[in-house]
């Protein structure tokens, strides 16, 4: 009797701890995530839907949206190719300097984006190492679209490779060797055996990469030059509007970005759910 009482007390304590922790976490999330998110939308619609739609259909806003999407469309595929290639050579081959390559891939995580932007300014500015040469050929990198794309690529470079390396490491080489011994070419082996096993991890990495490419502020703000309608991405546009006291417009564009973030988040959750299912299947 006493024993069952004891265990009952322990259970009661456990559920109390659980309850406290869960409510603390919910409070925290509400304060720091949910409230600001709602605030964005409230502020965006403060002056009515007309102002909202005017703000997001403004020509400068539209060009910022277009530029942001362009950056994503160019950055994500390039980093996908790079990510697969890097993960491949790190997990399938033995070579000197492998550890160095791994650290190099992670470098963008360690460097502040602003510093990253400055590095590229120094490198590509007319007085920089490569800038003067490119200038002679009439190619402009800094304060124009190519610069924005290059820094975004730099900042988002680790996402896909880091997602793939652990997957490919646990996968090993045997399945690929089996495919080759059955007569498959390298390309067929990749398409039919490698890609299907890494596809969810790859998609997950691409989603993270896109989210970061859309939202990147620091590095882009350094190299873009903020020429309205030309080198302004969405986060930069939000900042400009805000600094000009156009709060509703700023929040309208911000709400659009938040929507994009919510969409990527739900795709990401869907992929996580899928990968989990696949792993259970194994």
């Amino acid at each position: 009797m006493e024993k069952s009482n004891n265990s009952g007390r322990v259970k009661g304590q456990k559920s109390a701890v659980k309850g406290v922790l869960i409510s603390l976490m919910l409070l925290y999330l509400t304060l720091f995530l949910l409230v600001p998110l709602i605030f964005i939308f409230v502020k965006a619609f403060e002056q009515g839907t007309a102002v909202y739609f005017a703000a997001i259909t403004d020509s400068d806003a539209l060009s910022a949206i277009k530029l942001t999407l362009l950056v994503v469309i160019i950055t994500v595929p390039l980093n996908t190719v790079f990510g697969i290639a890097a993960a491949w050579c790190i997990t399938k081959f033995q070579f000197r300097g492998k550890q160095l390559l791994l650290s190099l891939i992670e470098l963008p995580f360690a460097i502040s984006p602003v510093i990253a932007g400055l590095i590229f300014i120094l490198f590509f500015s007319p007085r920089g190492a490569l800038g003067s040469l490119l200038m002679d050929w009439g190619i402009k990198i800094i304060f124009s679209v190519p610069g924005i794309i290059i820094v975004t690529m730099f900042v988002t470079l680790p996402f896909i490779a880091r997602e793939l390396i652990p997957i490919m490491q646990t996968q090993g080489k045997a399945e690929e060797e089996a495919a080759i011994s059955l007569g498959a070419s390298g390309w067929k082996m990749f398409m039919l055996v490698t890609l299907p096993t890494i596809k969810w991890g790859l998609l997950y990495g691409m989603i993270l990469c896109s989210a970061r490419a859309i939202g990147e502020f620091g590095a882009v703000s350094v190299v873009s030059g903020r020429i309205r309608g030309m080198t302004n991405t969405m986060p930069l546009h939000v900042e400009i509007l805000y600094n000009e006291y156009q709060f509703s417009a700023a929040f309208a564009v911000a709400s659009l970005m938040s929507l994009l973030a919510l969409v990527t988040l739900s795709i990401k959750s869907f992929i996580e759910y899928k990968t989990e299912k696949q792993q259970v299947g194994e």
Partner: protein
Amino acid sequence: MSIEIRDVTKHYGSFQALKNINLTISKGELVALLGPSGSGKTTLLRMIAGLESVEEGSISFDGKDLSTVHVNQRDVGFVFQHYALFKHMTVFDNVAFGLNIRKKSLRPSKQEIEKKVHELLELVKLSGFAHRYPSQLSGGQRQRVALARALAVEPKMLLLDEPFGALDAKVRKELRRWLRKLHNEMHITSVFVTHDQEEALDVADRIVIMNKGKIEQVGTPSEVYDKPVSPFVYDFLGNVNLFHGRLQQGKLNLGSAQLDAPDYIDKDETDAVGYVRPHHLTVERVRQSKDEIAAKITFMHSIGPTWHIEMRREDIDAYVEVELSKEEFMQLDLKVGEIVYVSPKEMKVFIPEDFII
């Protein structure tokens, strides 16, 4: 297809995995590469398959040098220890893989592929499993799918890397019998790697025993078992008792006893070791001659029909293991703690200096 391996050497960094390997495998043979881990057996198999590059020496099939032929052109079927099935494909698609990926001009029609896959699944006794995924199969079933998949492309040789290593004892025995039968029917040149001497002795036509990157002995199962050429082979192929002594006029002098060593009649005054299998020792309750070794029984247990008796020698601090049949054991009526007299029926003597590398 016959395989010729000439002077093959392989390094991994500073580690020498293979040293001057020479081996010929004739057409239709079933050969086992047997050795402890790190002996280079898997490396050699992977080199035959083309999954590892040949640094020095050459490997040729039917007289044709293969150094420059890529794995996917070698016509080998490779079976991996952990099956390496394509997890995202059904059993059917796994087996059909090698045929489906062929160029259009070489690819059989859809019906032919289907027929072939079903024939193979029948052969490996998995007819009803075509639409299952590898995760829904047991280990033994997975390995049979892997075999069917390797056979689907009609390879000229079959290479198996510890094919039954990950399976439990009973399934393992069943599968190796089945492999033997399959080989008898198909006569496909096969090489398999194993560290299990019983498996090699049970299945192979010929056994290649490897140690530290070198071939120790090549021969039929009875040759290597009955006439081991080195202490390593003797030791590796089964349990063994060692009797250290000195050779004197064709006898191995243990101090307390003299054992016959007729092979070494011309060798004198050298340290030598007598190797005796546990079942080659006779046990007597009463001393029959002065050349029997007195020992005290410390432990006895039976495994199926044989009794294993551990005893400690009275003359020096060394253990002797003896295997007796149930009948012999009953007749002797042994008890733990008793002193008995053992003598070898058969013994192989090696002089250690001959085998120092």
